[in-house]
């Protein structure tokens, strides 16, 4: 359904504001994400110790571990935005009142800011605890932004799908893993380059392409997922 841009933007903004207002009162997602990430971080650093970026001493594993922490924390905390609506039955009211694409973007913006907050918390901690030097901090920030976008977009769409199914928690992991794998591979490659100083090559462009593809797919598919 076509709506003028200004009303669409207002709708998306209203959804975004409502999500954060609810979240700040219950702090459920923030707690889950932060505690999950910190727990995982503790396990990783306690077992590996401060390896620094020295290659051949497990240094190659460090970019992967950072993204695994982000991936699992996202899986723990992001799906709630849709699952909660279905479980508390507020989804009915939303189906009647909101334009699907505006709803999707509002929820996506919320997931993005949530994930961004998590990245801002986890990454410095990770670098500190693992005694890592970052040769190219600009590339790291760009990777976290582009990778975070893809992670949030893919997770939001898959969350909308599984929210209407049974066995939500495990189903989310099962469905999102194949979708997010290219993103993870690209993000890890770029992060490795950011730590060690290698050139990004074509990977950053491919990551942005992936982001665009998943966002487009989300906008196209969400109305069919959300409504009969």
């Amino acid at each position: 359904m076509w709506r003028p841009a200004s009303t669409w933007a207002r709708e998306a903004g209203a959804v975004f504001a409502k999500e954060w207002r609810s979240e700040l009162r219950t702090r459920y997602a923030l707690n889950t994400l932060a505690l999950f990430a910190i727990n995982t971080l503790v396990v990783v650093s306690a077992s590996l110790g401060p390896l620094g970026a020295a290659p051949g001493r497990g240094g190659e594993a460090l970019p992967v571990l950072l993204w695994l922490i982000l991936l699992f924390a996202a899986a723990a905390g992001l799906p709630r935005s849709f699952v909660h609506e279905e479980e508390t039955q507020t989804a009915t009211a939303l189906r009647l009142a909101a334009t699907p694409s505006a709803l999707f973007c509002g929820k996506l913006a919320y997931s993005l800011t949530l994930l961004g907050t998590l990245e801002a918390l986890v990454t410095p901690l990770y670098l500190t605890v693992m005694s890592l030097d970052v040769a190219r901090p600009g590339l790291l920030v760009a990777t976290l932004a582009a990778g975070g976008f893809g992670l949030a977009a893919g997770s939001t769409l898959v969350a909308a799908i599984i929210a209407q199914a049974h066995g939500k928690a495990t189903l989310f992991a099962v469905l999102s893993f194949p979708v997010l794998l290219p993103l993870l591979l690209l993000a890890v490659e770029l992060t490795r380059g950011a730590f060690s100083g290698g050139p990004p090559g074509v990977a950053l462009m491919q990551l942005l392409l992936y982001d665009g593809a998943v966002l487009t797919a989300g906008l196209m598919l969400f109305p069919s997922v959300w409504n009969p």
Partner: protein
Amino acid sequence: MLPALSFTEVRRRFGRLAVLGGVSASVAAGEALLVTGRNGAGKSTLLRCLAGLLAPDSGTIDYREDGGPPLDAAGRRRRVGLVAPDVAFYGELTVAENLAFFARLRGLGRERGDELRRRLELPPDRPAAALSSGMRQRLRWAWALLHRPLLLLLDEPFQNLDAAGAAIARGLLAEHLAPGAGPGEAPGLAVVANPVPLEIPRVAASLDLGA
């Protein structure tokens, strides 16, 4: 042109059960259709199909507002007002915040929400999770009428309401069905579902699903 609703041979099954088996009726502006039947007869399912929340397996639903072509499911979703037991609101937001959110979604100002809230005597600053079941039902009425819909779909609309609440709700329904209720002064129409027959105004037809 006046709004009009008619549906023909609407069927819906859920898993093993054929819940709705070929139901038909029509409602004109200013009229109410009363749908009765035992529990599980398909009243709520029918209303959800009319609201565009469920796709019927077969049959047609024809709802038009301005003499134009019938609205598709997306159109019906935006245009109807639904009062149903499974409509819930955001527990951590207050009554006023809930209404303000939905008003904003629909591009409305705050006045209509405030007016309905006062009329239904809802406490503005109480979190929705802390409402009694009767208050929650009043909030459902306020929410349903927020955008001045022409078609009201009411599923057990007086459930949990005390005498005062029921009187206010009946008044709102009567105003809805009278001329001058919606934009352009057209009277609205309503489909009311309840396990037992209700005393409501302007009932033009009854549909009994149960057997």
